[in-house]
């Protein structure tokens, strides 16, 4: 399961566009060493813990 899928499984109200659209509050990033959360400023949902994403 990808990082995007894991986050959406935790918060089904989110969809992939929430990680792409220009006014996004969540930025997922990959610099070459794997996907990670680069920014999490969602007004409602707390940032998932490492355990939740494991």
């Amino acid at each position, binding site marked *: 399961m*990808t*990082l*995007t899928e894991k986050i959406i499984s935790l918060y089904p109200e989110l969809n*992939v*566009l*929430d*990680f*792409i*659209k*220009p006014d996004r509050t969540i*930025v*997922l*990033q*990959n*610099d*070459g060493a794997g*996907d990670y959360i*680069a920014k999490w400023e969602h007004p409602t949902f707390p940032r998932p813990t490492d355990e939740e994403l494991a």
Partner: protein
Amino acid sequence: MASIITATVASGLTQSADNSGVLQLASGTGNLVTVPSVTGTAMVSGNMPAFSAFGNVSYSITTGVDTKVRFETERFDTANCFDSTTNYRFTPNVAGYYQINYIGRFQATSPTIAYVMLYKNGSMYIVGNQIMGIASGTNFDLPASDLVYMNGTTDYLEVYINVGGTSILVNDNGTTTFVSSFSGYLARAA
């Protein structure tokens, strides 16, 4: 009128002076260059970095993730400022304003939207281009360009892409013409 320093075959270096406050240099007869009355760095080919690189090895990325585009092949890199092996980034060694051009090439199954972005020093600098309504399974190019100030020491640029869809592939295997590309040159020194 001007004060003129001239290199000649017959007499070597000659000079003539007046009180115009204008300085001209000449190689031979009639080849005058007026030195601008401004403060700055003279730009010649040797101190104007230029590079061009492309990526033609495809790799999978995750939907919804800003992912760095890889450019493994250099067409040229005049000042050895582009890293085509590890970080795929441009770190110019002369401060100034750089014209930057880039293309993100990708394909996906059921793509919804795609962005190509320029990152400066690890953070998004600008969304260069976006597209919606893309055909499934078809290679697509997202071109963009910008003029960016770089400090000539630590500033660096990278290209990222983010695609909505499944089975996303960035770059196009094998071709040297339909490629993701990244190029730039110093347009004006600082």
